[in-house]
């Protein structure tokens, strides 16, 4: 699948919780209608610091070289899934899903995703493609899960191919056995351009300042792992047990930088990895 992440910073007119409501409410209501979309998740930075969820001692033990300005750069990120790049680029067109007086009609607001970018965000999203490895397929129960994201950066002298092989290899093979784990997906940012033709040419993201802002963010990590648990205690208990001490050892050589964030996940479109049916389905 084509999987695209878009990290966004809220418009300063909004509080973080205002931003949640605007993104989860109005904006997602259009985003979920994008033509041929196969999955759409929104992750909003939790109001609870990860030190409070997992415990300060554990977080300090697991964290290394965390960037000081990381949290000032984003409030949430959307995850869009399409079958192909062509579907993704064509998604921002009117959708024929409005029941009008003459039957089903086009709604141009879908192609504009509600036309609220300038009011919801501060600048363009940091929009990038990721190459994912599914270490443990996600299975969601009918309740809000504890979703934890591990941001990692490789040592300067480690080739990206090895970094990826090591993270998704022995490390993930052990991590996927963490008790209570509901899913583990490891994502690596790629250089594929998913901004051109998706955002207007005059978007902030294409200005020198916009490029600089985005590149600064990208310089702080190479990959990110999504973990789903029933509760924070599942992760904390496991990582404090001797059974998973090897993860600590592996992290010493795998990561030059590693840090964690809790996010609140909205499933705007449940990702479907099987072939699409021949009718409108979300």
């Amino acid at each position: 699948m084509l999987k695209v992440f878009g990290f966004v910073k809220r418009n300063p007119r909004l509080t973080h919780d205002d931003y949640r409501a605007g993104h989860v409410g109005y904006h997602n209501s259009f985003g979920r209608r994008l033509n041929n979309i196969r999955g759409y998740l929104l992750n909003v930075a939790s109001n609870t610091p990860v030190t409070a969820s997992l415990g300060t001692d554990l977080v300090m033990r697991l964290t290394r070289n965390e960037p000081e300005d990381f949290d000032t750069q984003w409030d949430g990120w959307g995850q869009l899934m399409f079958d192909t790049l062509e579907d993704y680029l064509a998604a921002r067109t009117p959708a024929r899903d409005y029941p009008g007086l003459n039957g089903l009609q086009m709604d141009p607001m879908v192609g504009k995703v509600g036309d609220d970018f300038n009011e919801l965000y501060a600048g363009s999203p940091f929009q990038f493609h990721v190459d994912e490895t599914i270490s443990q397929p996600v299975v969601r129960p009918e309740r809000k899960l504890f979703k934890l994201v591990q941001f990692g950066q490789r040592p300067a002298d480690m080739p990206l191919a090895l970094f990826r092989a090591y993270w998704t290899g022995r490390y993930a093979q052990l991590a996927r056995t963490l008790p209570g784990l509901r899913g583990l997906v490891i994502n690596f940012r790629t250089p594929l351009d998913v901004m051109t033709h998706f955002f207007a040419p005059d978007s902030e993201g294409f200005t020198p300042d916009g490029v600089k802002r985005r590149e600064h963010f990208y310089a702080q990590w190479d990959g990110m792992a999504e973990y789903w648990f029933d509760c924070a205690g599942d992760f904390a208990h496991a990582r404090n047990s001797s059974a998973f001490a090897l993860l600590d050892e592996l992290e010493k050589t795998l990561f030059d930088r590693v840090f964690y964030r809790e996010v609140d996940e909205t499933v705007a479109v449940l990702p479907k990895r099987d072939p699409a049916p021949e009718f409108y389905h979300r």
Partner: protein
Amino acid sequence: MFKVFAFLKRNTHLLSHDEYRAGHVGYHCGQSRRLKNIRGYLVNVWSNTPIEERLGKQWHDALSIHPPNDFINWWDGFPEVFFDHREDWVTATTLEPTRATADGLVIDPDWSLSDGPQLFNPVADRPGEFQPCHLRMHEHVIRPVLRAEQKTFKLMQFFKLKQPEAEPNVSAAAQQLLSDYAPIISRWHNCNGAILNFRDSNREAAMDDFYKPDSWGHSPEGLAHRAAFCDYFDGAIEYHFHTPTAFLATRAADQARLRALEEAHFSSCWYVEVDENLVVMPNRNPAPNFYFR
């Protein structure tokens, strides 16, 4: 939770079944997913593949008891909505700020459910109205639903109890079903979810205070329509499997016992495959103290 099944027939003058899918799951749900305090929202649309074809005639006949011929003529889809309390349900259309604008977060002035008469079966002499059939359901989670990242194979097993009860949600027949039938289903390890729902004996339980007293749903025609539809069934079981084959293989192992119980408990039962659209993941945990879907 306060759970409602809302059976809705499309506007056949304007929409095909597949166009109805797009209109309901697309535009309409883009509005209704913002209902205040909604805790879960699924839209089930009957499958384009006939159930006899999906299960095979032999299995279809072996699983059914006096199936009605016209049941899916009454509806094209039914949303399932979940709220914490009845009060949340009847005040769900209260608008709240969800739109970012130059003035900050505001109530969306374009929010509207006015597409209803174009999407659903309209009422000839009542412009702006459609024919709702919203029923309160009392659920019993036999196996908690687990959703993988793929389209689920979802079956609805509608049933009518042999002894119509005044209050099926607490009736002896219902209790019997929970005590002998449900435990068999609960052991189906290949089943990704099974929920037994009894229709509230009060057919107006989800209509009162949600629709205006002078609306079609409360008119003699609306009451008669709902009564006739409710006469088909007292409850329904939702089953989630990865594939039809998984369902049939699982069912086959218990067919004799389940069939005997069905013949003992049901005057009729039948299956409808539905395509489930997840609009708001049901969240059975307490609601967080921020806007969440």
